[in-house]
């Protein structure tokens, strides 16, 4: 690293890469992959997301991140759309993922009963 300008250039490019893009159906999927997430089964969840997207010929980036602190709700995934809306899905199973890809990613319909706000009883 030679200068701040060099750092800024990397930053600009990275921000652009992280942007939710139209050719990616306008979505980005981020899966919680800290110890808590992985212990709760985040790896098969990530695989299911990728398989489901592939099966439907859909290109949406699937990335990972750390722990947000509600480890008992893992595995979790955030779906971010191109207007910046974030939906957090909790306690995922491969079956739930299939429905989320079908309803949310393909048809733009949030699967409310799987979101973090569906747990009003706990929160």
């Amino acid at each position, binding site marked *: *690293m*030679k*200068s*701040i300008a060099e*750092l800024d250039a*990397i*930053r600009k*490019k*990275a*921000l652009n*890469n*992280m942007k939710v893009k*139209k*050719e990616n*159906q*306008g979505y980005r999927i*981020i899966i*919680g992959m*800290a*110890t808590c997430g*992985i212990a709760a089964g985040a790896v098969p969840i990530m695989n299911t997301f990728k398989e489901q997207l592939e*099966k*439907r*010929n*859909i*290109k949406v980036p699937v*990335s*990972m*991140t*750390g*722990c*947000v*602190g*509600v*480890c*008992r709700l893992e595995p*979790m995934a*955030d779906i971010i*759309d191109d207007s910046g*809306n*974030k*939906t*957090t899905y909790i306690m995922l199973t491969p079956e739930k993922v299939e429905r989320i890809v*079908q*309803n*949310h990613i*393909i*048809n*733009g*319909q*949030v699967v*409310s009963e799987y*979101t*973090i*706000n569906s747990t009003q009883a*706990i*929160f």
Partner: protein
Amino acid sequence: MHIYSSHVLVCSGTSCTSKKSPELIKKLEEGIKRKKLDEKIQVITTSCFGLCAEGPIVVVYPEGAIYSNVTLNDIDEIINEHLVKGRIVKRLLSGNNEGNNSYESADFFKKQVRIALRNCGVINPEIIEEYIAYDGYQALGKVLTTMTPEQVIDKVLDSGLRGRGGAGFPTGRKWLFAANAKGDKKYVCCNADEGDPGAFMDRSILEGDPHSIIEAMAIAAYGIGSDQGYIYVRAEYPIAVKRLNIAIDQAKELGLLGDKIFGTDFSFNLELRLGAGAFVCGEETALMTSIEGKRGEPRPRPPFPANKGLFQKPTILNNVETLSNIPIIILKGADWFKTIGTKKSPGTKVFAIGGKINNTGLVEIPMGTTLREVIYDIGGGIPNGKKFKAAQTGGPSGGCIPTEHLDVPIEYDTLIELGSMMGSGGLIIMDEDNCMVDIAKFFLEFSVDESCGKCPPCRIGTKRMYGILKRITEGKGEEGDIETLEELAETIQAAALCGLGKTSPNPVLSTLRYFRHEYEEHIVNKKCSAGVCKELLDYIIIPNDCMGCTKCIKVCPTKAITGKIKEPHIIDQEECIKCGACLEACPFGAIIRK
């Protein structure tokens, strides 16, 4: 048979037909043919989807996209965007993303302020560019190109940041001591040993945002004049270790570690050292001894590490969470940092909430938040309608805070006044079903196990105290036990070599301070009203409720229950080992525990 790669299903149910779906089919087929896609895409008419109100309905497979209210004008867009380019036409979907369903909108997060955890759950920790996208390494750049080492230390001093590893020592002051110490070689160390039972905020930061620690350590090194750092992390954190290694490699590759960083003369290298998980190795002098490759035992202080630390050279050691605050303090300034938290404890603290609470998890709150807010607003209260009894902070070095102090703001000094301490951030909630003598015994047992054995007060003293507590919980407590406990505690506090020993009596002293009556109840009445201490409980059969079914007789492992069929049974208290098997077996609820 011809295999199509896509199918377009158009509804021809009564309702959709009346809304002109046959014309849609015609236009679709013509358009597909024109694009020469008719070998690949087949148009199929179907019966009613049950979505008549939103008809006409068109569904495209393999994606399964459901388009509603489709008009003739929409067909070209479906063909050009979806069938040709593979992009779903979002505006025609029947769904809508209503409401805010992000985790940030949940009550659990509303009172939180995320500084140390700012990137956890946001960036991909294995991609350095994502950290850079979120202002990563900007602070290091600013420090190296525009600030002197003195200015860096001044800024940290001014921010009032205190060590998050437990003791709360001002970070800037620690750095200043090391900067002023004479020496050709100096070291920067990060304490990622995280030995407090139940605490996992450091792991979370290392796994979710490893670059923030690397950046902070480089800033610290510039401040004190060091070129070498070590991160001491426990081997039980394999994912943290893996991501730290990836992060270090990426930082080296981009020249953010190594020589001539940002084109200056500053060089910094970083290595990991794996700890084997001994609690005492989290203590600063033991940690450094362990990095040197020796058995992890503490050494007497003074000399303090700032003058003679790792390899006898001036050294600073900071906790993971402390360090994660540094880059953002440099970027946003000390004044900004001081607006968060309290005057004496600026900033935030991450707590791992566990025990008898609805929302367990990691929370980052401004210092000065009350325990009541943490337990009821963030934590969602105590499960099953039970009553709050106490909160334990500071793990085996800390103590408990009872109901009457629920409204005390959480900061370093108030917790010490209450006989507890901040510790590294474990927060265990206890309800009426927890026995405080048992809790004290639990933490003391931890200290007995983890004592390194170097100094007698800790090695022998904690064992003696544990023995007394064990007797008390077994119903063999004697008059004078409490006084002996207090005497031992005082001696250990005064004479132990390191923090482990010095603080190990705290759980006992603090439960004695607030729950002395529970100790007395155990010793004098041989009772445990929380119903935890097994030996102090009696299992009794209520004659009127007992149907004489003999189920309990059959499950009792010591044949302590006798009685004829259809007549009330009796438990021989001498033979009973209080296993509870009979209580579970009784179909009539005739057996109680008292």
